């Protein structure tokens, strides 16, 4: 028995070594062929391996950021586990990761806890990833790539609350006089897992629809209308599978589905990165956020600003102002600077379809990043 274990272990190890030597760990050389890789951040290159964890919504953007970051800091190894906002923040609060990505700002409790982990001060959150949430639908003859239906917040709320059950309901018809709507049942599709996308969508519905939406705000879907599906991928594939479905998902995943143009002021605005950035710009910061350096956006869902799209997911990066390890502090500072730089935001926009932050927002954030002590 001993022998056979030994033989097998040798076989396995030599197999792994062979694989490794053939492919040199299989790392793809970073795609820095883009001529736009001009580094305007004047920080010295960071080396070492660092990890973060958190929101899966940021995943596509973070993958692009890691590739871009390693282009200018070839000796840094960065890993991101899209384990979810909650798991990401708890891991960060144990000190196991350098930063966390989260779809929600820190709670007061978490800010308090962070004082134990950070070398000094409290952890702070800054927005890094802004992405429109699209209300997607699949309706034969009506939906298609780039096709939209007009709806106001109240209609959306009533559909997702099961009060409007037919596609040719007057509430929808009156807003879309030119569209031939079929007499078909509406199947609502929502997230079945706990999710920041749900929370952001619900907070829009709650703020904008008034009495039409009576549920408490949370990360879980509150009613039992329609169907639940796991993750953005689950929602999109469920919506694709049947006629007459409507759901909400990160806009970059909308693909060939029809989307809803939301009523803002007097007009209807289809989702777009610029429209999403606009609403964030016109929204105030949340003053009730306790602790230093925190930049928390309080989305103004009732905005009447022309061309602003109000259903938006704002995802944060969470970091400490000081770390026990100076190298980590250096990394976090240069990582956050890169991520929130114009270059970083453009990288995310092309890789994940997110909305690049405006200059005004970036200025607010820069102050917090500067507060990170690297010595």
């Amino acid at each position, binding site marked *: 028995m001993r022998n056979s274990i030994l033989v097998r272990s040798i076989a396995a190890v030599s197999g792994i070594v062979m694989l490794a030597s053939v492919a040199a760990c299989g790392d793809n050389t970073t795609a820095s062929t883009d001529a736009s890789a001009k580094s305007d951040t004047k920080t010295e290159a960071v080396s070492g391996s660092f990890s973060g964890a958190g929101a899966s919504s940021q995943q596509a953007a973070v993958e692009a950021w890691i590739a871009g970051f390693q282009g200018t800091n070839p000796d840094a190894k960065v890993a991101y586990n899209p384990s*979810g906002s909650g798991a990401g923040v708890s891991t960060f609060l144990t000190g196991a990761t350098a930063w966390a990505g989260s779809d929600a700002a820190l709670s007061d409790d978490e800010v308090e806890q962070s004082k134990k982990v950070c070398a000094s001060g409290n952890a702070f959150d800054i927005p890094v990833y802004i992405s429109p949430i699209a209300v997607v639908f699949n309706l034969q003859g009506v939906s298609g790539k780039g096709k939209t239906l007009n709806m106001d917040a109240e209609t959306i709320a009533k559909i997702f609350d099961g009060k409007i059950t037919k596609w040719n309901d007057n509430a929808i018809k009156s807003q879309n006089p030119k569209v031939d709507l079929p007499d078909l049942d509406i199947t609502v599709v929502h997230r079945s897992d*706990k999710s920041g996308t749900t929370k952001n969508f619900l907070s829009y519905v709650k703020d904008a629809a008034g009495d039409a939406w009576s549920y408490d705000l949370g990360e879980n879907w509150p009613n039992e209308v329609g169907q*639940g599906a796991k993750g953005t991928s689950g929602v999109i*594939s*469920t919506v694709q599978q*049947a006629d007459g479905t409507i759901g909400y998902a990160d806009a970059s995943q909308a693909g060939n589905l029809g989307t809803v143009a939301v009523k803002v002021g007097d007009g209807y605005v289809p989702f777009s990165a610029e429209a999403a950035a606009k609403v964030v710009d016109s929204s105030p910061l949340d003053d009730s956020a306790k602790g230093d350096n925190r930049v928390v956006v309080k989305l103004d869902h009732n905005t009447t600003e022309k061309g602003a799209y109000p259903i938006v997911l704002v995802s944060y990066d969470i970091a400490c102002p000081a770390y026990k390890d100076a190298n980590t502090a250096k990394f976090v500072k240069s990582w956050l600077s890169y991520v929130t730089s114009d270059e970083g935001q453009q990288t995310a926009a092309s890789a994940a379809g997110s909305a690049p932050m405006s200059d005004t927002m970036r200025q607010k954030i820069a102050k917090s990043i500067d507060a990170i002590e690297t010595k």
Partner: protein
Amino acid sequence: MSSQSKTAQQPVSGKNADKVFKGVAYACGILILVVLAAVALFLLFRAWPLIGGDQKANSDTISNFTGGKATSFWSYVGPLLFGTVLISTLALLISFFVSVGIALFISHYAPKKLATILSYVVDLLAAIPSVIYGLWGGLVLVPAIYPFWNWVAKYLGWIPIFAGPAANPSRTVATVSVVLAVMILPIITSMSRDIFLQTPRLQEEAALALGATKWEMVKLAVLPFGKSGVVSASMLGLGRALGETMAVLMILSPGLNYSVKLLQASQNQTIAANIASQYPEANDLGVSVLIGTGLVLFLITFVVNFVARKLTEKASA
């Protein structure tokens, strides 16, 4: 074996080695007990805030999980438990008859060569990872099976459990049960097959000699002999279905009801899938709650398997 010649030269020494070896073997036996106890203890330890912690915070966490529908642990875990048992029982019902049929086919109907190949095929089913069943179920089976469920709802809708309208897409308890049935089928089949193959030849031949048809022979000799084995195989299959995570997670549209409307979406959820879907976004206390539900699941599977073993032990003694 060549080892005989070698051992013959060994001196009669190693009393100590003997003792050590026996000790190690004994320790490993005991370790099984320790491991099982450790599983229960570590889970209990991590779920402790649920019992010993701040009850207000607990009910807040739970109401956060359920959108205010449940505030106590038991009202949270109750529907989950109901859904878990419902879905796995249905899966067992579907898969039981098919499995016994296949097992009989392999053991008594198919020619020997074919039977060997068929055994491999069935074992192959067992080898497919659950995440692949999840992908297949969610992307292929769900749209494909809708017309069938729609038909069922139309013509059998007067039976309460088949009450329509059938959900489209059919991410329902019925569809998940079918997928789980496919997943536990190889387990039940291979165990039943082994039992059927052990039916005493004499009894079979006696039955045939008396003029029984093949089916009568099976009914008189094979099935009574294999009864307890088939029951324990089914219980084992049930245990597997109770704990299945990924396939349920990727297919089912969940809900927290005590409901048996199989063809409608958002009715039930299983404990395992619920843990997987809530875990990533849960905070510390939330994880404790989820581990608490995991502990309940552990106890349920423990009881199911325990009962199954006791049944067979009695039958074989």
